[in-house]
């Protein structure tokens, strides 16, 4: 029996859930029974299966992993992202344009329910297609190579511990105060501009190592070294003079406060290569604090080595299975797709399909451009009081900065890059992506769309 009074109806969650499920099912049926989805599946299959064969790697399992995750999976996620954005842009716009919304709008359904149903339908389809893409990539990675070796030799999932150093902002502030007290601050620059530059400098500050010198860092991994003492060291050196220089030295590991080294591994490579050294140190099992020393053992005339500890030095500890990490990557990308679907649906509620699709795509481009570092440069330009900026530059600055600010929580993590490097997608980053992409942005956009749909005349 349908409740007839306003109070009875509005307080019953069950009819609303049924309506949401009905709209979601309708979206799924529309997608599955249209040729667009078939074409999308073909494009995805061609990209995910074919693309790795078109890109030449060095033949190593790590290179194979890199190609399949960074290119094939990224291609799949990118295509799904565009399809999601455009499909969601069509959702309400096409219904309103064709006046098919007439029959739905006269039913006792709140616009928020319609929005939610559409969003869930698109998201469910995305979840299935993305899972299929991830599953195909996973299957390809674990297959056997032509030479008989297992491809999964590089399929790690590790947590990354950086050396314990003061936060760049704190160190930049301290340097700034020192410069200010000694009257050596650069003239004509605002405090913000100076601090920004100092922070950038601190982040990329090098430690210089002359031959026969050594340097020690401490690490606090977020999980203990496993019982078998298996871990990795990641380093990348630069050279003062030459493009490439021999890196000859030794890395040693121990628990802080102990005198004997628990593990020692030789380094013999060239600068500029990122080195990843596997270490087997059962003596470090259960350690939550590690001390690492590097001794530069090159001949005295050799060039000095440079290392940026904040960027190019890490200890990696095993943290779960690669498959679980891939599921985290799937979840992270699903959160991005959820945000795109929400954006498209809201544009669809506001504009006709061509306008919605064009505006949403343009916004996406602005966001991608702003994350390419342009926003930071423009912000620095803004801080520089001597810089003369035109109106157009100021408008572009405002647009890019706003887009950067609004989307920053979604765009900073790079789950694919992390998975390709054998790193576990951190809980905090995954949580932030899911919270913003799956809840905060959709909620804001849904409320906006519901407001528009309530006010908008559905038919003419």
């Amino acid at each position, binding site marked *: 029996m349908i*409740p007839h009074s306003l109070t009875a109806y509005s307080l019953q969650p069950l009819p609303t859930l049924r*309506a949401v499920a009905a709209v979601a099912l*309708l979206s799924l049926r529309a997608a599955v029974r249209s040729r667009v989805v078939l074409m999308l599946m073909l494009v995805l299959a061609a990209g995910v299966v074919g693309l790795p064969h078109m890109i030449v790697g060095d033949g190593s399992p790590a290179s194979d992993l890199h190609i399949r995750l960074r290119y094939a999976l990224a291609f799949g996620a990118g295509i799904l992202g565009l399809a999601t954005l455009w499909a969601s842009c069509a959702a309400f716009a096409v219904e309103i344009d064709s006046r098919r919304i007439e029959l739905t709008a006269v039913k006792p359904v709140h616009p928020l329910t319609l929005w939610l149903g559409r969003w869930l339908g698109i998201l469910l389809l995305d979840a299935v297609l993305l899972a299929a893409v991830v599953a195909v990539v996973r299957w390809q990675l674990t297959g056997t190579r032509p030479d008989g070796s297992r491809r999964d030799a590089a399929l790690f999932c590790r947590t990354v511990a950086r050396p314990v150093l003061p936060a760049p902002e704190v160190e930049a502030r301290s340097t700034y105060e020192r410069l200010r007290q000694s009257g050596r601050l650069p003239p004509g620059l605002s405090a913000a501009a100076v601090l920004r530059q100092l922070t950038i400098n601190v982040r990329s500050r090098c430690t210089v190592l002359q031959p026969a010198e050594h340097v020690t860092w401490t690490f606090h991994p977020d999980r203990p070294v496993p019982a078998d003492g298996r871990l990795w060291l990641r380093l990348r050196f630069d050279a003062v003079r030459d493009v490439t220089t021999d890196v000859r030295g030794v890395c040693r590991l121990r628990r802080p406060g102990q005198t004997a080294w628990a593990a020692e591994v030789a380094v013999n490579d060239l600068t500029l290569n990122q080195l990843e050294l596997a270490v087997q140190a059962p003596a470090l099992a259960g350690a939550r604090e590690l001390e690492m020393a590097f001794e530069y053992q090159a001949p005295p005339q050799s060039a000095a080595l440079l290392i940026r500890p904040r960027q190019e030095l890490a200890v990696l500890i095993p943290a779960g299975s690669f498959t679980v990490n891939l599921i985290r990557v799937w979840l992270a990308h699903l959160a991005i797709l959820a945000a795109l679907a929400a954006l498209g649906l809201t544009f669809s509620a506001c504009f006709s399909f061509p306008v919605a699709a064009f505006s949403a795509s343009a916004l996406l481009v602005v966001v991608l451009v702003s994350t390419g570092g342009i926003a930071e440069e423009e912000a620095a330009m803004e801080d520089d009081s001597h810089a003369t900026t035109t109106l157009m530059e100021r408008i572009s600055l405002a647009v890019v900065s706003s887009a950067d600010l609004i989307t920053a929580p979604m765009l900073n993590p790079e789950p694919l890059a992390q998975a390709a490097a054998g790193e576990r997608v951190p809980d905090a980053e995954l949580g932030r992506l899911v919270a913003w992409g799956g809840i905060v942005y959709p909620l804001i956009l849904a409320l906006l769309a519901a407001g528009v749909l309530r006010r908008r005349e559905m038919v003419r």
Partner: protein
Amino acid sequence: MPDIIKPVTPSVIAVRGLRKTFRDFWRRPRVEAVRGIDLDVQPGEIFGLLGPNGSGKSTTIKLLLGLLHPTAGTIRVLGRAPNDVAVKARIGYLPEVSRLHAFLTPRETLHYYGRLFGLDATACRERCAALLEMVDLQRDADRPVGEFSKGMARRVGLAQALVNNPELLILDEPTSGLDPIACREVKDLIRLLAQSGKTILMTSHLLADVEDVADRIAILHAGEVQAAGCVADLLSRTDAVRFLIEGLDDAAADALRRELEARTGHTVALDHPAMDLETYFLQVVARAERRDSATAHFRPAPFLMPGEMKSEARSKKPEVGTP
């Protein structure tokens, strides 16, 4: 004030001073589609909105359904504003053109709209089956609606308008696209629904359709009510009298005419009564159907009828051609 306002009992639809002006992108007035309409629709009556194309019938209906916002005036439907969610739960609507999802089957379509009304799966399934039987689409229940003819799509549209067992049924050109048999069946159904206590507002530019079923009508032109009232009152001629005598030959009829003219001093017209084409068509088809034992009749779904009419609805099989 026209006869259209009869606030005897609380009106199902009460409209006062309704105006709708369509504006262009720059908010400049473009068309004034409705110009100060007043009307009341009473519970249980069939009310017809008549008018030529562009007279404001569909705009008025869309305003009543909350699909358009009025420029001025007030609208109360079932005692509330038309965009109230609780009111929408009590209304069934058949638009002028049944714009259904082409990829859904009639069963899925009815199930979808039933779920939008918050019906549970079992109730939805039962109502869908009953409605499909009512509109004679059981055999095509699992074919995509996109493959349907206009008449079949119209039947699905009618069924979806009844899925919530509405108190108020708004039908925009309900017989559009239907063959004469289906037209008659729809009109029979409309009468039965009204007998069961539902209020029906329908529009049509087919005057005969409205005349057959409506209790009261309003004729719109250029967005204004030009005439309104009970159909019988509006159409009856009190200044003339008609006799109907069966079995009278021409000579007797002529004698009678002369006698009447002599006595009254008025000119008397004599003719043979003719049935309308629809009745004749239906009689021919009914004969053919009796011969072929064909069955295609709208029988109201039992859930649409009140208790005492349920058994009748289950067993009743209206005769084609029965007015």
